[in-house]
């Protein structure tokens, strides 16, 4: 399974194997990574699974995939940066093995 690394705001790293087809939000929530909340469970209805895609991965995963995601990111509690994503919208694929996402200080 592809490995996703979540880096907490304080620098703590969590390495989690996430199934292909699942998403980066669920990989965190199901494995106790508390820096992601995901309160709407992935319906683009909140902004509590905000993450920053690490620079090395920005080309493949650093851009929102819909206008809804772009709109909803504006409701994020923490600063929105160029590689901000809602992690529920990053579907895990074999190509994303090794993905690193950094987590904001707060989700609300």
């Amino acid at each position, binding site marked *: 399974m592809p490995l996703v690394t979540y880096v907490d705001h304080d620098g703590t790293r969590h390495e989690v194997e996430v199934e292909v087809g699942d998403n980066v939000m669920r990989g965190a929530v199901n494995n106790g990574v508390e820096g992601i909340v995901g309160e*709407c*469970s992935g319906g683009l*209805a909140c902004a509590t699974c905000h993450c920053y895609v690490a620079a090395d991965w920005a080309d493949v995963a650093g851009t929102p995939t819909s206008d809804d995601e772009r709109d*909803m990111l*504006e409701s994020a509690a923490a600063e929105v940066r160029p590689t901000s994503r809602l992690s529920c919208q990053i579907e895990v694929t074999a190509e994303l093995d090794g993905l690193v996402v950094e987590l904001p200080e707060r989700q*609300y």
Partner: protein
Amino acid sequence: MATAPIVIPENDPRNPVPFPLPRLAGPDQVPDHVPEALIRSTNMLFNPEFLADPYAYFSGMHEKLPPIYYDVGRMGNAWNLTKHEDAFFALRHGEYFSSASSTPFPRDPSDYFYFLPIEIDPPMHRKYRAIVDPLVNPQAVLKWEERIRKLSNDLIDAVIAKGECEFTEDFARPLPVCVFLDLMGLPQDMRDQFVTWVVQLLKNFDPAQMIPTMKIIGDYLKSAIEDKRKNPDEGMISRIVHAAPNGEPLSDKEIFGFVFFVFIAGIDTVYATLNNIWYWLARNPDRRHEMMADPDNINAQVEELLRVFSVTFSGRILKQDLELRGVQMKAGDRLTSILPACNYDPEVFPEPRKIDFHRPRKPILAFAGGVHSCMGAHLARLEIKIGLQEWLKRIPEFSVKPGAEIKYPPSAVVGPEPLPLVW
């Protein structure tokens, strides 16, 4: 009133005990710390002005009432919140706001149980959510799409030639309830019976009269739970019965309270939303045409309609003293977030009364928020979307039956009924 510090107990789902604090109700039960200037008696669910047009009332609350006021009345005394920001704060900060005792349903003190997961605070609630999330997350509900589409068309088939229907009975209730029964693994031939029970429970505000209905539903669900124990299937009840988070099966009380809560929550909310939406559509042909001309925008249309036609409320109890927006509240105070009003907060949704299908997407409170946000939200969205698509395709022109007077009955779930339509 007593001034001793109030301690809200941490609920232990394996050892349910009746909530120790009484519900205050009425003007002679206002705590001393509540300033006179913030006391109101809106009598909301029963007030004729509210019932005449609940959504005009909800949107008008931002002009007519303080953003936080202490409502006093027979439904119980509580701080009411109407700001989007404040409701999200209350829903998202379990360290201040407990959802213990947040449902109004009476239980036998000698055989007490909690409604799960709603009455359990984080982080313990997560154990329960994790059991059912795989059945109701946005990806999981997609498997119901064809079933919902077929059911929508079957229901339309049954009435289309008649040129009229009573929308509640003929479409709004059967559509979500049939899907829900399949999801739960409950028999379709009990549909009308289930609806009757839940309606009796939710439209009756007298605890003494709720008790017998609670017993009837409880007895039925106990037998359904026993059946699933012996005959496991793919449904939600079976999944709850056989769940073993971290290798530990749920206790009988946990299973019962979980199944009971899901049962109540799943029967009565979508129909009220559909009735609100169809009542509006029936009176607004131009907006109907606008929606039909822009089918690719259906998701935004559904979200905007959910924003303006939210149907329910969210209760919490304060665990510790808190000052919010300059208002001093104390541990033990109850709060109600008026979710339908929060969705008309002009600070978040400019020109809030305007139904605008091209609004930038923002979090709405139709399904509450925070860790207890509605488990069925994605199924509800899908049902509304498909219901709209299929209905507008086949019955694009319709109106309220001439002469019919549409009323909102007093209910904790806001929707007009009956709703006779003609085409």
